[in-house]
């Protein structure tokens, strides 16, 4: 009995490992209290997409970024992202020219609108990317925000 149980557990673990390897389970995206250190240390949009488990991302007109064209104070830049892509699972905000690209990543469970609004710091004028994971695929939209006074350094 015990031996069989162990066998089942072993098999179960194998399936999980396989799923993780295939990218079906992304630990950083599925476990709430984990923090994806590698993703937050990335220094380009491509690196961030990869660290979040994507092979690349496709531009999409179904993602809307609401943010000012010009931010006088780079320390407080309001950014809202709304996705109209079916089965949106996650929304991430990336700031191309910040010291680290990834600013925030939000997991959107079923029942929650594919919409988030927050405030971010920008070191200088930069493209801001909204990266959306929908139905397991990666999409993005971008908007340039001009910054008068940078908000990252000291």
């Amino acid at each position, binding site marked *: 009995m015990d031996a069989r149980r162990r066998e089942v557990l072993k098999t179960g673990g194998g399936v999980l490992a396989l799923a993780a390897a295939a990218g079906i389970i992304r630990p950083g995206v599925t476990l709430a209290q984990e923090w994806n250190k590698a993703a937050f240390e990335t220094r380009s949009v491509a690196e961030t997409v990869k660290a979040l488990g994507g092979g690349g991302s496709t531009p999409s007109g179904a993602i809307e970024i609401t943010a000012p064209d010009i931010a006088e104070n780079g320390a407080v830049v309001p950014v809202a992202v709304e996705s109209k892509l079916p089965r949106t699972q996650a929304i991430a905000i990336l700031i191309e020219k910040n010291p680290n690209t990834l*600013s925030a990543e939000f997991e959107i*469970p079923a029942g*929650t609108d594919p*919409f*988030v*609004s*927050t405030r*971010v710091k920008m070191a200088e004028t930069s493209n801001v990317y909204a990266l959306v994971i929908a139905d397991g695929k990666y999409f993005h939209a971008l908007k340039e925000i001009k910054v008068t006074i940078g908000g990252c350094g000291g």
Partner: protein
Amino acid sequence: MADPMRIRASMTGDKVEVKVLMAHEMETGLRRDASGNAIPAHFIRNVTVTHGGKTVLSAQWGTSVSRNPFLHFRFKGGKAGEKVMITWLDNKGEKRTDEAVIVGGG
């Protein structure tokens, strides 16, 4: 202990609109003090919002979320009088949980 969050949760049609203001310095680790010493990073890494035991939003943040972070989102399935609970956890292991009662609205 960090100051409490300011949370507003209100019904908008069949959805609960949640707006949160957290009290946190969100220090990047890149700044220096007057004597030239690096100010260590101190920032919120994880935010979890639950309603009736179900997670309605979870987030991972880096240092470039603004000081005293603001968050706004909407979810379905809540009613006036029920509670929304929000927890943040920062890179020093400090944690804060606050809750708000959903109020009726337009």
